[in-house]
């Protein structure tokens, strides 16, 4: 504080460096920081530490919401809990049946593919994380979760909820991580229409209920209600995880590309917890790692999964 306060009586233009000179100095430092932040230098380690320092403030700012959550949790009546328990038991039975069928299918699939050895499980490691804060505006769709580098989270780790893909880890602190949602305008995810295996890329539309598929030709075979699953390209998500359902297709005769919108299956509006997934790279359905790309002069910490190509 002395730094700010002590200079009060100093004449503005008399002693010390002029504001212009100072601006030049600060601008130089800022540019240097940005440059090294891009290059994965010591600045990124500094940033990792700063993330930890920022966490208490984030938790403080979100404490009213978190507190309300805790309160409403503790005030729920026994009847509500019993009903929920009923519902979950029912659901578990259904899932058990599905798993039984799935095991048989996997076996059959392995035989069909002529694989002798049993496949390793696709998901190597998963953990639950709680949402600390949600930011959903047209420019940024992010959430902060309460698991970080110390819990084994890594950048680009897939984040899902019970219904489908939510996004991926974009930034990491020791005890927290920022997740970029699939609906963020800077996020793109390679998808595939389950009905006909048509591949494309779904880009966030900037509102929490929408993805757009900007690269589909006007004559491509998509229609409302089609299920989109991840295609396994791009190196982040494995093939076959549900992403969204097509909600509207507009074709105009004078345009080359159809305007396709989709509604994501996962949603942070409902979730309090998300699931972090790490995959076994040996599995055939695991996300194919990208070939290493030489860094561009001013390329960024990549927010979106690396896309091989933007063409349909």
């Amino acid at each position: 504080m002395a730094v700010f306060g002590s200079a009060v009586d100093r004449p503005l233009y008399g002693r010390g460096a002029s504001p212009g000179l100072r601006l030049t100095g600060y601008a130089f430092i800022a540019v240097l920081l940005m440059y090294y932040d891009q290059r994965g230098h010591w600045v990124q380690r500094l940033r990792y530490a700063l993330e930890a320092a920022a966490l208490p403030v984030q938790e403080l700012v979100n404490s009213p919401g978190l507190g309300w959550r805790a309160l409403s949790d503790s005030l729920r009546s026994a009847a509500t809990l019993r009903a929920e328990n009923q519902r979950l038991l029912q659901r578990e039975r259904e899932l058990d049946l599905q798993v039984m069928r799935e095991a048989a299918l996997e076996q059959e699939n392995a035989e069909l593919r002529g694989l002798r050895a049993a496949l390793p499980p696709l998901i190597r490691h998963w953990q639950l994380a709680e949402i600390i804060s949600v930011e959903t505006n047209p420019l940024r769709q992010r959430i902060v979760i309460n698991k970080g580098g110390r819990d084994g989270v890594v950048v680009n780790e897939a984040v899902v909820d019970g219904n489908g893909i939510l996004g991926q880890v974009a930034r990491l602190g020791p005890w927290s991580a920022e997740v970029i949602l699939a609906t963020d305008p800077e996020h793109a995810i390679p998808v595939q229409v389950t009905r006909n295996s048509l591949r494309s890329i779904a880009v966030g539309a900037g509102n929490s209920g929408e993805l757009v598929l900007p690269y589909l030709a006007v004559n491509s075979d998509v229609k409302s209600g089609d299920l989109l699953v991840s295609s396994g390209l791009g190196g982040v998500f494995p093939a076959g995880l549900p992403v969204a359902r097509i909600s509207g297709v507009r074709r105009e005769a004078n345009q080359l590309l159809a305007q396709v919108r989709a509604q994501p299956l996962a949603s942070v509006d409902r979730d309090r917890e998300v699931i972090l997934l790490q995959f076994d790279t040996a599995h055939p359905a695991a996300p194919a790692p990208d070939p290493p790309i030489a860094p561009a002069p001013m390329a960024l910490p990549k927010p979106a999964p690396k896309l091989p190509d933007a063409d349909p």
Partner: protein
Amino acid sequence: MRDQHLGLTILVTAVIALVLSIVPLPTWAAILWPQFLVLTVLYWSTMMPRAGGLLLGFASGLVLDVFEGSPLGEHALALSVASYLAIRLHLLVRAKPIFEQSLFVFAALMVYEFVLWVIDGWSGHPLSNPARWVHTVTGGLVWPLVVGILGRFHTNR
């Protein structure tokens, strides 16, 4: 007369403004929400150019960078530039009626957002969504409020 705790005052108001800047909001409000930390820096740069100085702008910008996840230095640069403008023009701006001050603030916020926009573009996050410019207008509109509130915390010099 010298304000005894001016440094502390500036720090506290900046922290409160930071909390206001990162508070979670519904979508429509998030678009309209002014950048309170930037307004606070502009206020102290205009009214007390000797006290906070450019360092206040630079440091606040770094803090914003950490919270917003932008390349470290992006907001710091933008806020240093905005703060520099305010310091250089402080005599001019301070003498104007509050309505005209709002126009200056709007202009400074435009410069601030422009720097961010340019760096976003260079660093590979080009976002041309017009929503990002809305806060420059609302920021100008709430400026009288900012002056009214922050003006209570120091004697006029």
